[in-house]
């Protein structure tokens, strides 16, 4: 029988069992968190059974890295490391935290995927409901349950949360959390206004210094400029590697990596999945795999797949598979943290550099600015359509989708589809499929 094991493909969790065995037999070398993907299903990540995964060893490492974060955090806690919860933060405070020895930052907001990944088998949402934070709020409310049960992460030594030009929902959820005796160190991020840019930078710099002081108090280590410069250098390495991956994947004639793995890989940029060094290694292996696939002219999707730029992360990971089932491929993304993909300036004082980066967050500026960056990137990657995925209950800008639609249509001439994706989308899957298929039909007809 012809050996097809090197050909990129999307396979099920069950198919991964055989694939894992053959990779092991072929001499697969794994990181400490390695192992068969099936073990995560056995531990309660039931949604995995309904997903389709890339069949590479690099993708296996990515998934194992993502799904072992809980174990990693508890191990860090047991080892006496300080655990810093960085909330409503798209890539700034983790850099401060990782500048310090024996310190691990994580992203409690990431628990918004738990109801999806564990197919609502945990009590997290029920606990949030009981606190009066019901389904009219963003799915990140699952975080409230996670803090109560301590099942997904250990009690942090410090909680840091931004407020100001951030999502109203999140602020309400975080305040509810604080009312449950979880003390929060708040910092303010102002709404970005070009006219007072330098004033904003000074203000955010002072806010970040306050966080640095708090971190020093908790960890016992002073956050020196030297430490921070090194942390910024490491962050820039991650960003550079991720940009390399994006550039390769989004511009290749055939998609060398599926949309789902790209979404997961990009999320590493903002919080490192609790291990900065390993993040870089995971991304490097993905880049290597993608380069080989491109050199061999191979991809995991047909060459005529419609090139789609995706806006906002989805609460249900299965929808990224659906995009491809409907004939699309990911060619560009704005998962809300594009600023965390840009290199952090190294020609200014490090705290000021971080302040400038924090202020570049698309979520703290006008929707029109975000839309123009989407237009720029969509053109850069040759996207043929844009999908704006709304998050139910999220309220950072109620009219953002409309603004993006108008700007993208006007300035790039691309079709734009708005969809709304709940944490488990099975009930609306038929409707989502119709919309996605219709978008692909529209693009294909225009292309013909």
């Amino acid at each position: 029988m012809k050996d097809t094991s090197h050909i990129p493909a999307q396979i099920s969790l069950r198919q991964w069992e055989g694939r894992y065995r053959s990779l092991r037999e072929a001499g697969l070398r794994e990181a400490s968190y390695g192992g068969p993907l099936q073990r995560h299903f056995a531990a309660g990540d039931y949604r995995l059974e309904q997903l389709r995964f890339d069949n590479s060893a690099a993708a296996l490492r990515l998934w194992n890295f993502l799904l072992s974060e809980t174990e990693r955090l508890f191990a860090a806690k047991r080892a006496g490391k300080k655990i810093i919860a960085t909330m409503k933060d798209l890539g700034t405070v983790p850099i401060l935290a990782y500048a310090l020895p024996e310190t691990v930052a994580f992203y409690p907001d990431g628990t918004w995927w738990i109801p999806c990944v564990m197919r609502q088998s945990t009590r997290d949402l029920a606990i949030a409901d009981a606190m009066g934070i019901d389904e009219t709020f963003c799915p990140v409310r699952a975080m409230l349950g996670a803090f109560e049960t301590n099942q997904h992460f250990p009690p942090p030594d410090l909680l840091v949360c931004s407020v100001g030009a951030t999502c109203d929902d999140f602020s309400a959820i975080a305040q509810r959390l604080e009312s449950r005796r979880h003390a929060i160190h708040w910092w303010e991020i102002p709404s970005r206004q070009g006219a007072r840019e330098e004033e904003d930078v000074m203000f955010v710099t002072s806010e970040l210094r306050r966080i640095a002081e708090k971190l020093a108090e908790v960890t016992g280590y002073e956050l020196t400029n030297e430490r921070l410069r090194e942390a910024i250098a490491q962050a820039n390495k991650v960003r550079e590697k991720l940009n390399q991956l994006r550039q390769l994947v989004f511009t290749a004639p055939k998609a060398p990596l599926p949309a789902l793995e790209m979404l997961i890989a990009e999320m590493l940029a903002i919080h490192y999945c609790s291990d900065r060094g390993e993040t870089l290694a995971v991304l490097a292996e993905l880049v290597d795999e993608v380069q080989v696939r491109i050199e061999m002219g191979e991809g995991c999707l047909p060459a005529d797949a419609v090139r789609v730029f995706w806006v906002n992360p989805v609460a249900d990971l299965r929808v990224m598979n659906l995009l491809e089932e409907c004939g699309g491929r990911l060619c560009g993304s704005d998962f809300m943290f594009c600023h965390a993909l840009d290199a952090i300036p190294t020609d200014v004082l490090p705290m000021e550099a971080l302040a400038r980066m924090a202020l570049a967050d698309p979520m703290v500026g006008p929707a029109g600015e975000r839309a123009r960056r989407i237009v720029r990137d969509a053109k850069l990657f040759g996207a043929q359509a844009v999908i704006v995925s709304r998050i139910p209950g999220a309220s950072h800008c109620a009219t953002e989708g409309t603004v993006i639609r108008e700007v993208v249509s006007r300035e790039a001439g691309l079709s734009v589809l708005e969809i709304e994706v709940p944490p488990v989308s099975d009930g609306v899957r038929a409707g989502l499929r119709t919309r996605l298929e219709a978008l692909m039909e529209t693009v294909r007809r225009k292309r013909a």
Partner: protein
Amino acid sequence: MICAGIDGGSRALKVVLFDHAAGRGGGGRGVLASAVRDQVVDHNALAEKTYQELLAQANVARSDVKRVIATGYARNLIKAADATITEITCHAAGVRHLCPAAMTVIEIGGQDSKLLRLDTGVGNGGGVRDFAMNDRCAAGTGRFLEMVASRLDTTLNQLGKLAERSTSPAIISSTCVVFAETEIIGLLASGVAREDIVAGVQHAIATRVAAMAGGRLDEPIVFTGGVAMIPGMREALAKALGKTVAMSPQPQITGALGAAILAGR
């Protein structure tokens, strides 16, 4: 060349047999036969039965049908189909055949409403430039009107006649069918006339569609889908949009017609 289109909608199944040679030039020509049936649990069985009845009615052998396209919510369940195309693309093709100048299509069906912006090129198949769908609630759909008819002890066909007699349309504020039903019960209990409730409901649906349009509509606007057949809805839409809204000649079969047209391309 004869092709068939089967639209497995949520409330009704529609089938069209279309002769492409006779249908050149549009204007509704080329339809050999069409049928509309209330939807049932077994979508495929109903589609097969209706398709066979239509073939017999038009005296066309099954082997003479070159291609069958299924569309609509149940499109993937219809085994007679050679391929599927979404109702969005099919409605656009169907409307362009019936109304070649159409630039915007508003389709309100049993379980959703759609707004399609079309390309200018008639020869390009009435292609969709952009589309939007109501995906948040049933309050902009045919289901809403069915619930209202049931609650007011009348039929869908009588709703329009009732609305015509309205002098002071009621204000329906709810965005959810379930809550709207509660609201309607409250209005009835407080003595609001049935005709005013119906007019208020039609206005609520129309304003929901207008919101989906976001004020950007090219004319001519064509209204299609099963709800277009309910008297008063076209007028309510025109009022909410502040524009002239034309009725598709055969609103209920537009999707199936479009599917049959696309089957021949």
